[in-house]
């Protein structure tokens, strides 16, 4: 991959996103996203079509804002007490780059602790990023949980 964006730049961007999520800085996290952004967590790994299939999450920017607002409101019982999370992002690869728009694949492991129980979630992130300006903007974030088809519990924390 020859392009103007380096893997190190991408890694720094993804690490920053991970840190904002794990530190509960959701408003700052939201600002990483483009106004037309989509945040998608499908059930199916292959052939998932959000227009026809129900998803775990399929947020436009407005609903992402509501998601953050709800978490920060203090009235979301499912996050009272809040989940404590720490995540590792790795295997970062720039899959494509065109005119400063990049598609990035990475793997993640999230340890989530709540109610005396630790859960481990793992999967793959796919970020479409507009890397043209000084401030990169996420245009689309897709989260493929390895266990997405398993009966799920409380996923009201941020993946």
């Amino acid at each position, binding site marked *: 991959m020859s392009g103007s964006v380096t893997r190190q730049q991408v890694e720094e961007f993804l690490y920053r996103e991970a840190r904002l999520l794990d530190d509960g800085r959701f408003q700052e996290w939201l600002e990483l996203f483009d106004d037309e952004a989509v945040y998608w967590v499908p059930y199916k790994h292959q052939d998932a079509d959000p227009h026809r299939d*129900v998803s775990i999450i399929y947020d436009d920017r407005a609903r992402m804002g509501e998601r953050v*607002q*709800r978490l920060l409101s203090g009235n979301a*019982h*499912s996050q009272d007490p809040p989940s404590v999370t720490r995540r590792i992002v790795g295997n970062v690869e720039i899959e494509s780059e065109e005119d400063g728009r990049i598609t990035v694949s990475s793997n993640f492991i999230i340890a989530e602790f709540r109610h005396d129980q630790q859960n481990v979630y793992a999967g793959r992130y796919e970020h479409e990023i507009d890397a043209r300006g000084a401030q990169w903007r996420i245009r689309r974030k897709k989260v493929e949980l390895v266990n997405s088809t398993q009966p799920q*519990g409380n996923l009201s924390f941020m993946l």
Partner: protein
Amino acid sequence: MAAVEPLEQLVLDDRVHGRIYTDQDVFDAEMERIYKQCWLYVGHESEVPEPGAYKTTWLADQPVIVSRGSDDGKIRVLFNRCRHRAAIVCQYEKGYANFFRCAYHGWTYSNDGRLTGCPFQDGYGKDFKKEEMGLVQVPQVGIYQGFIFAKLTEGGPTLEEWLGHAKPFIDRVATLAPGGIELSAGVQRGAYDGNWKLQIENSIDPYHFGFVHESFLELKGKKREWIKEMKESTTRQTMDLGNGHSVSTTDHEKLGIGSYTQPFSLIVFPNLVIIGSQVRVVRPLAPKRTEVSIYPMMLKGVPDEVNEQRLRTHEAFYGPAGFGLPDDLEVAFHRVHLGLQAQGDPWLIISRGVDRERVDEKGIRYGGATDEVPQRAFYRQWRRMIAAGASTG
């Protein structure tokens, strides 16, 4: 922990004992006396739309295949168990198959259940009759308005008799769109450490909404409107339809909770709920473990954008990351089970509105929007079946 008193005494007209949510002997009795004696929902015709289509599911704790015969197009419900050494013969959630071939020793069944292939059959001798060794069919199958039900025992009421006063509500669901409905958008499957009845009780309970889902109402700017509606509305009501079925005519759509194109939610005893734009199936796994499957209902014969909008509205509230459902997991199930351990007063109250119930000439009981009519309807049937099961062994 097992006490000597008959289990039906754990449910009174106005309260239920905490043991019904925690005890293994109660759970075992429910499986035997309720789940084996009731018509149970197994799927919708749209999930097996053509000859050769199948879906696998569970009838209480037993794996079954809902299969539409390749030759006759007839829907059967077959136990998912090879007649030879018991392995399930189909492990996929849904698909198309003319045959189910057991991976263990190659026994092969046509999708109407007949045993068509038994490798090296002569080894079983001349008394072996292939025609008697097909997949066992669940004793009774019934279809009402596309909703497929099965029953693990013979006899009892027909499906239509069983559905009774719930039928007109199912009729309305089935005719939501010009082409009817279809469960084509997949399933949201969830699980929690708690009793299955808590999910049923919570499925029609407008009383809890303003509290458990306060954050949702605030997001939508509907909190005051909701409280006003619940306190003052005379058109919203809860109804005990008999046989444990109940309905709430709460119009959630006005409040932005799902695409409620029919203004009611329906519980069909013991474990089917039709809420707004979804079919919800509750599956007991253990006294304190439950699986819930939510199938969004798509409309046939409408523009694609209409269904897509239904999905988006549905996801806003439901599913493991929705703005509503996780709060039920936390409060209505998790915190209830924590509280059930306190034994000072072991009873839970379901008496709300009991003094203002009205009964019409058909025997349907009516209550106010937030009255615990659905809970009483459910437990009245629960008690009847637990008691009847005890007397018949």
